């Protein structure tokens, strides 16, 4: 049976620097779905120990009020990541984000270390989930096998900065350099039935550009976006929250399909549109998302 939180709502995953206790003390006031407590790029090399110390105590002491606590560990090419895993698991994190994932073996290596730490710190084996960040052309090409690598893996995320460097192009702001990777990753994730997350938008002054990008990735099927500032949260949530008319329509579709199925009718119309069983899952997803977003008060 899969982990109960594997498919939880993750519209916004907010990066926070573990080196700064003031940032990680109460980010839940901004209501992100997940926080990503960063031990990697945001933390200065000589501050890695101090960041782990803050992380451990924050995870132990702070009630994050239901916000998922993901820890981004250092890369597998460093000698830091094993201690990061121990610290995160001991603290009680929900998930671990693996940076620079290139192969399914990378995931399995970390999974093994997580299981060891779970035993060491007496947590149920399998309780900590994994997400994999794809940051290179090789990682993106291997998306399918990475998605299939572990039962713990709930999703993959594009990491745009490193990926564009690997492609040898600058980030244009138009998203053109990410087109192939995004399309490839979402298809792989859906094939493996895991979630897929988009990269950060770093220009905080360009909120219009940010909004456009979120609309695009929402339309492509991404489950959410990595974010770097709380002001980005309301925009993502607004775009990801089903509109009232969509909820009403989805509700009708679900009810009609269930009703017609009982009567042995396969194809019919709702509000003038042809509907059959193929629409059922989509309508159910809309209702589930509306529920998770707190805007559905119905009984489905």
């Amino acid at each position, binding site marked *: 049976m899969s982990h109960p939180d594997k498919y939880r709502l993750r519209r916004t995953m907010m990066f926070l620097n573990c080196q700064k206790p003031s940032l990680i003390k*109460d980010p839940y*006031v*901004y209501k992100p779905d997940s926080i990503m407590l960063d031990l990697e790029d945001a933390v200065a090399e000589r501050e890695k120990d101090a960041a782990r110390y803050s992380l451990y105590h924050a995870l132990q002491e702070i009630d994050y009020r239901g916000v998922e606590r993901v820890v981004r560990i250092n890369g597998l090419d460093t000698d830091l990541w094993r201690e990061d895993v121990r610290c995160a698991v001991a603290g009680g994190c929900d998930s671990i984000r693996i940076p620079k994932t290139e192969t399914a073996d990378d995931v399995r290596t970390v999974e093994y270390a997580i299981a060891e730490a779970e035993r060491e710190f007496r947590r149920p084996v399998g309780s900590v989930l994994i997400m994999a960040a794809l940051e290179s052309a090789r990682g993106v090409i291997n998306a399918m096998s990475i998605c299939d690598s572990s039962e713990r893996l709930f999703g993959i995320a594009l990491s745009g900065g490193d990926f564009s460097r690997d492609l040898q192009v600058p980030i244009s702001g138009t998203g053109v350099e990410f087109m192939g990777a995004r399309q490839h990753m979402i298809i792989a994730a859906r094939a493996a039935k895991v979630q897929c997350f988009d990269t950060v938008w770093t220009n*905080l002054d360009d909120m219009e550009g940010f909004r456009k990008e979120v609309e695009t990735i929402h339309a492509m099927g991404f489950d959410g976006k990595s974010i770097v500032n709380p*002001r980005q949260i309301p925009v993502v949530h607004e775009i990801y929250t089903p509109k009232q008319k969509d909820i009403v329509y989805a509700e009708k579709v679900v009810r009609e399909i269930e009703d017609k199925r009982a009567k042995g009718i396969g194809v019919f119309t709702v509000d003038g549109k042809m509907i059959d069983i193929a629409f059922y899952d989509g309508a159910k997803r809309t209702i589930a998302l509306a529920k998770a977003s707190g805007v559905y008060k119905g009984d489905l």
Partner: protein
Amino acid sequence: MINAVGRDIPEEIIEITGKEPFQGNLYRDDKPLTLHGPTIRPVMNNEKSKLVANIREALEKCGAHDGMTVSFHHHFREGDLIVNMVMKEIHEMGLKNIRICASSLGKAHSALVPMIEDGTITDIESSGVRGAIGEAISNGKLKGLAIMRSHGGRVRSIATGESHIDIAFIGAPTADDYGNLRGIGGKADCGVLSYAIVDGNHADYCVAITDCLVPYPNFPAHISQTKVDYVCVVDEIGIPSKIATGAAKPTTDQRKLLMAQYCTDVVVNTPWFKDGFSYQTGVGGASIASTQYLAEIMRERNIHMGFGVGGLTKAMCQLLEDGMADVMLDVQDFDLDAVRSLKNVNHHRIPAAVYANPLNKGAVVNKLDYVVLASLEVDVHFNCNVVVGSDGMITGAQGGHPDTAQGAKCAIVICPLLQGRIPAICTDVTTVTTPGESIDVVVTDYGVAVNPARQDILEALKEADCVPLKTIEELRDIAYSIVGEPDKVEFGDRVVGIIEARDGTIMDVVRQIKEV
């Protein structure tokens, strides 16, 4: 004696000051009182010149003496040069036991500390003090008492004669040789002289100090020649960049924006938010942001503000400029945009007396629907502390906080749950400066609490389901669960200051910091 906010006011303080403990907001409502008039020297001889060569000559001509009270306004804020200039002269004259009656004192006045230490200055009356003077008082260096009173309370104390001013020194951006003073123009343009008007009306002597002498008549005068004894021209009365700053950049601090959003949600979902409503807010990032959010909703719903009041900023004056507010009433200008806005015919200067004096026949604050305030601490009785830091050091000013909070139908205090490691929502504030009966809503980053005395507001917000409602005790408990309940600050026995209520009764006392 325990007063109406549960604070123990020592008998000897009641005896020394002749004041009563605070009895509740409406204790002096409708009770008769007699106002005080100054003793003046009429100028009938048309050959008399009011110009003096320097501050020393003004002091001598006004009969400066030991034990006198001198007064100042704080329109030049942290750019003020007047207080130090005059006190330096008084110090050099060797005068002692001087009482300063200022509308406020700030970090610009740290030069007074040695004069406190050597007994030149023994008493201070002010809205509050910051920086080194606050530390000096909290450390017991002032021989007499510091009396902290609100802007409205200061007018009351001067108008009733409780504070008798011997010589008022009024820094004036422009003046003519016969003492017509204006707050606008010149090098130290501060827009208005609202806090100094009561000084002009009630001080025995009144000395204008300017760095911009203009031809007679400097009209329309904000303080009239009929109030002014002498005019002294000096090189510089203020530092412009520290007087009216450029408009504050809109805050990008998400925590402040979150609280601003909650605050706006409270305003627009309570019954007074309708065409013609009145509103006051401060200069903090959250206050300015909440004004901007409010403006958006006013536009959407086509609701006009009847009048805005206050210490004004660009955000408020913009509403007037855009035709979304009908009138602005101005006691102080915090940025250059507010100063410029005075050109608008519907932007009116008002004296501090009209703004907030509790003991006249009704001040503007009584007509406020909403005021948005800040606070260092708020306790579970909704009492606020805006003067004494959680470390026990005097570090802030009452300003118009108690005046507007009492006057407004809906007084909203924005306060982050935690100030660093200190819980700002607590069981008992370090010092009560505004009583809980004046405070209706507390907005924090963790939720919004409504004073249980205001069931009307609570019902309206429940109905609207617009903000996360919590009780004030729940907010305190969250704060304590995060940072723990701090031990109470330990004070020494000696009372170094009193927090005066608007009506002149004693709200609380401030004790000397305990020596470690």
